C-alpha cells in the first residue's frame, strides 16, 4: 500500500461520541423556537436581558458577606487535582467562571442534604527519584554490582502507596535503540482516566557510570519508569489479570488483525481472577468502535446473554489484546513496555502483548474484551467511567457516594446529571466547607487551561481551597451521569 493510500485509510471518518450530538441538540434547542439565521433583533434584546440579569447576579454576589479569609499558602501547581484533568484544552470561558453562592436550605425541607466531607486521602505525588532508584537497585542489584552493561536497560517499577514495590519489569534494549516514547504509542495504551497516572509517574534516563541513590554507580544506561499507585488501589482487579486469564485460557479467540472481522468477548470474572463466563460475537472490523462508546442505555443488554443483571456488575472496562509485533520495526522503544506494564497494573485499558521477534502483519492477532468483575458490597453499580480505578470515589478518598453527589447536584445544580453525560453549561462544580456543606456552586466551562484549585482561587477572590477532586459521577446503572464533577473544599 503506498503512502497516499495509507493516508486515506488512516484518515477514515471517525464519529464523535453520541454525547457530542446530544450536547449540540441541547445547546440549539433553546434557540430552535426562532428560525435559524433570522434572530438578530431578538439576540440584541436577549443580550440586554442577559446583561441585566448578570448585573443583578453581580450585585447579589457583592452583597454577600465575603467568605472567611484565612491565609493559606497557595497550592503548588503539582499539587493540583489529585485526579488529573482530562488532558487537553482546558479552558476559559465559562459561564461565570465565578461560581455562585449555594442555595440556602428552606426550613420546610425535611430531608437534609448529604454532606460532602473533604477526602481523607488523595492520589499520591509522583515518587521522588531517590525512592525510585532505591527500589530499582533493591530489585535489580546487578545494575550496580554486576558486569558492565553495553545495552540500554528498560526498568519499570510500580510502587504501592507506602513505597513498597508492587511489581517490576526489566528488559534489555538493543544498543543505540530509540529511547524516546512515541506519543502515538502512549496514546494507544492510555485512555481517559489513564492520564491520571501520569501525575504519579516519573520517567528518567540514567546514564552508565552515573551515581544514583546512596552512591551506587550504574553499570549501564537505564531507562527507568516508576509509577506509584494510589492508596487503596485494588491490585486484585487490574486489567492485566483479565488479559492474562484470557490469554491463558482463550487465546484461540485471537484473530488476525487483517481478517476483516474481530472477536468481541464479553467476560465476567471471578473474584479470584478467573474467567467465570463469557460469550463471543464475531463482528466486522468496520464496526469496531472507540473505547468511549459504551452507551449507557445498552449497558444492561450486554450482560443479559450471561444471565447477569447490572446490579451484579462491579468494576468494568474494555481492553484490546494484541499479540505480535510489527514487522521491520526497531526494537520496542524504551518506555513502551514500561508504560504498558504500569498501565496494566493501574487498571488502564489497553495492553500490547509483544510476542518477541518481528512477525508479519498477518500474524498479528487481537481480540476486544468487555469485562466486568463481580460487584462488591458498597461498590457503585456498573458504570465504565465511574469504575476506572484511579477515578473512583473510594480510591480518591471521598467519604460520600455517587448517590450523595447526585442528591446534592439535583438540589444545587438541577440538570447537571443527565442522560448525555455532558452539561452544556460546563463542568458542574461544588465548593464545600469543612463540614461538607455546599457554600458555592456553579459551572466551569472547559476551554483552555487546567482547572485546578489554583484556577478556582484565581476566579473566585477570597476562596482558599485545601482539597480538590474531579471525577465522573454515575447516578444509577450508568444511565444518568455527569462526565465529571469538580469538588473543592475550603481551607480550615
Amino acid at each position, binding site marked *: *500500500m503506498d*503512502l497516499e493510500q*495509507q493516508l*486515506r*485509510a*488512516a*484518515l477514515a*471518518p*471517525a*464519529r*464523535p*461520541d453520541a454525547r*457530542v*450530538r446530544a450536547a*449540540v*441538540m441541547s445547546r*440549539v434547542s433553546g*434557540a*430552535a423556537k426562532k*428560525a*435559524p*439565521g433570522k*434572530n438578530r433583533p431578538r439576540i440584541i434584546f436577549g443580550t440586554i436581558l442577559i446583561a441585566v440579569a448578570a448585573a443583578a447576579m453581580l450585585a447579589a454576589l457583592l452583597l454577600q458577606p465575603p467568605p472567611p479569609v484565612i491565609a493559606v499558602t497557595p497550592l503548588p*501547581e503539582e499539587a493540583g487535582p489529585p485526579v488529573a484533568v482530562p*488532558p*487537553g*484544552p482546558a479552558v476559559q470561558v465559562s459561564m461565570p467562571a465565578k461560581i455562585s453562592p449555594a442555595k440556602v436550605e428552606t426550613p420546610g425541607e425535611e430531608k437534609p442534604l448529604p454532606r460532602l466531607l473533604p477526602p481523607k486521602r488523595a492520589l499520591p505525588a509522583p515518587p521522588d527519584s531517590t525512592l525510585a532508584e532505591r527500589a530499582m537497585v533493591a530489585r535489580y542489584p546487578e545494575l550496580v554490582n554486576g558486569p558492565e552493561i553495553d545495552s540500554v536497560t528498560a526498568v519499570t517499577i510500580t510502587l504501592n502507596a507506602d513505597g513498597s514495590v508492587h511489581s517490576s519489569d526489566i528488559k534489555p534494549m538493543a544498543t543505540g535503540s530509540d529511547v524516546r516514547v512515541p*506519543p*502515538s*504509542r*502512549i*496514546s*494507544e495504551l*492510555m*485512555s*481517559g482516566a489513564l*492520564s491520571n497516572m*501520569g*501525575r504519579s*509517574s516519573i520517567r528518567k534516563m540514567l546514564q552508565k557510570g552515573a551515581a544514583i541513590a546512596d552512591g551506587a554507580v550504574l553499570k549501564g544506561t537505564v531507562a527507568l519508569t516508576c509509577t506509584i499507585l494510589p492508596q487503596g488501589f485494588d491490585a486484585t482487579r487490574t486489567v492485566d489479570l483479565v488479559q492474562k486469564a484470557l490469554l491463558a485460557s482463550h487465546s484461540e479467540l485471537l484473530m488476525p*488483525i*487483517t481478517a476483516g472481522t*474481530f472477536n468481541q468477548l464479553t467476560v465476567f470474572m471471578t473474584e479470584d481472577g478467573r474467567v467465570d463466563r463469557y460469550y463471543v460475537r464475531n463482528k*466486522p*472490523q*468496520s464496526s*469496531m468502535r*472507540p*473505547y*468511549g462508546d459504551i452507551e449507557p442505555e445498552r449497558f444492561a443488554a450486554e450482560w443479559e446473554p450471561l444471565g447477569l443483571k447490572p446490579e451484579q456488575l462491579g468494576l468494568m472496562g474494555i481492553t484490546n489484546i494484541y499479540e505480535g509485533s*510489527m514487522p*521491520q*520495526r*526497531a526494537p520496542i522503544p524504551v518506555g513502551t513496555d514500561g508504560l504498558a506494564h504500569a498501565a496494566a497494573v493501574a487498571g488502564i485499558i*489497553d495492553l500490547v502483548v509483544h510476542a518477541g521477534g518481528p512477525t508479519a502483519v498477518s500474524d498479528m492477532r*487481537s481480540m476486544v474484551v468487555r469485562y466486568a468483575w463481580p460487584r462488591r458490597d458498597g461498590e457503585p453499580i456498573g458504570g465504565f467511567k465511574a469504575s476506572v480505578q484511579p477515578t473512583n470515589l473510594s480510591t480518591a478518598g471521598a467519604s460520600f457516594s455517587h448517590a450523595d453527589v447526585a442528591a446534592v447536584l439535583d438540589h444545587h445544580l438541577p440538570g447537571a446529571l443527565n442522560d448525555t453525560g455532558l452539561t452544556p453549561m460546563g463542568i458542574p462544580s461544588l465548593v464545600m466547607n469543612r463540614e461538607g456543606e455546599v457554600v458555592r456552586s456553579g459551572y466551569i466551562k*472547559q476551554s*483552555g*487551561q*487546567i482547572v485546578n484549585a489554583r484556577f478556582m482561587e484565581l476566579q473566585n477572590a477570597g476562596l482558599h481551597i485545601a482539597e480538590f477532586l474531579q471525577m465522573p459521577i454515575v447516578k444509577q446503572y450508568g444511565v444518568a451521569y455527569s462526565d465529571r464533577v469538580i469538588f473543592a473544599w475550603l481551607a480550615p
Partner: protein
Amino acid sequence: MDSKDIDMALTSPLPVPLGGADSFVRARRGDLTAFGELLREHEARVYSVALRFTGRRLDAEELTQDVFVQMHGALGRITDRDHLRRWLLRTVTHRCLNRLRDDSRRPKLVSIDTLPPDAEPPASEAGHDPLASARLRSLLLDLTPEARAVMLLRFQEDLDPSDIAAVLEMPVNTVKSHLRRSLDWLRERWNGESHGS
C-alpha cells in the same frame, strides 16, 4: 458567512442525506428534528477534521459542538447542501487554526511528566495496519497547521487543490506546494521507519 463560499466549486460527491432530500430545507425553517438529521449526516466529517487537526479528543468534541451550534445560527444564510458542506469544512478548519494559535499563546502548564493528550482512540480500520495509521496521524500533527489543514482536506475529504484553496482562502499554488512538501516529508519518515507496501 460571505459570498465567497457560494463561489466555491467542490467536485467530490455529496454524502447521502440520512433524512431525505428536504432535511436541509426543513432545518432552515427551524425544524429541530431535521437539524438533528443534518448533524448526524455531517458530524463525522467535522469531528474527524477537528480530531486529526488537534490530536485531542476533548478539543475535537468541543470544536465539533461549536461548529454545529454556529451552523444552527447560520443556516438561514446557507443556500444549499453543497454550500453547507463547504461552510462546515471552512468553519471547522478555521476554528482549528484559531485554536492552535490561541494554544501557542498560552503558557504551558503541563508538566513534562504528564502523559500526552489522549489522541485518537484506536479504532481499527478494516484491512489496514492500525498501528501504522496511528503513526501517520501522529506524523500529521508535526506538520505546520496550514500544511496539516491542506493534507486533511486532500486525503480525508478528497478535495482538489482548487477546492482546498477556496476553503482555506489561500492561493492554489500554495496548496500544491504544501501538498508536495508534506508528502515528501511524510514519505521520508515513513520509508525511514521501514513501512511501505
